[in-house]
């Protein structure tokens, strides 16, 4: 099954965006983002601290809905899901 990961702003610059990736059943949001972000150590460091915990400012969405960071390890992804990972917003 395939999911799409979208990074924005600085995360996009470090990791790219619209990344289609095959995942196995039971993959969690947290493990997915960890794996993808490890493609670039700087990108990983932008999202996770040295203990592998999300920086508290990181925002996650699954199919356009906010997922709390604390729930990412218990949220599984399914075929066709769109995952978004981004820093604090600064529009306006």
């Amino acid at each position, binding site marked *: 099954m395939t999911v799409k990961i*979208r990074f*924005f*702003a*600085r995360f*996009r610059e470090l990791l790219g965006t619209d990344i289609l990736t095959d995942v196995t059943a039971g993959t969690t949001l947290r493990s997915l983002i960890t794996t993808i972000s490890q493609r670039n150590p700087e990108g990983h460091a932008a999202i996770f601290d040295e203990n592998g915990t999300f920086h*508290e*400012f990181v*925002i996650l*969405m699954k199919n*356009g*809905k*906010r997922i709390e960071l604390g729930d990412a390890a218990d949220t599984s992804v399914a075929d066709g899901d769109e995952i*978004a990972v*981004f*820093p*604090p*917003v*600064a*529009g*306006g």
Partner: protein
Amino acid sequence: MIAIQTGDVDIGALITAAKKPGTGAIVVFDGVVRDDGITEMELEAYEEVAVKELEKIAKEATRQFRLLHVDIIHRVGNLGVGENILIIVVSAGHRPEAYAGSRYIIEEIKKGVPIWKKELTRDGGRWVPGEHGHGGGKPT
């Protein structure tokens, strides 16, 4: 009109179109690229989500402040100094609602709509930190 777009808009035409029956006051907010020693501003949005958030904000502002019309146009892409970034047009029967509704909309956008700005300078660039620690769908 709620939109995220690269192109500019004709604010005069928006004001004319905002004159719905009962309108006594129109307030326009126009956020522009400030010349803080930058060459350009680069704007990026999580567009589908951002549009939905803007629609939600417009709806809530309309309800809370009894607005008669709301336009929110947020631009993306590369914008030069002095260019319009964000245009908010609201109309209401009376001025207190028009001012309060306009202000509510800009503050909610700053809080929770997934849009980012990068200031480009001759030496590189810098992502503008959000005014709020969090954001993206849920004001915190």
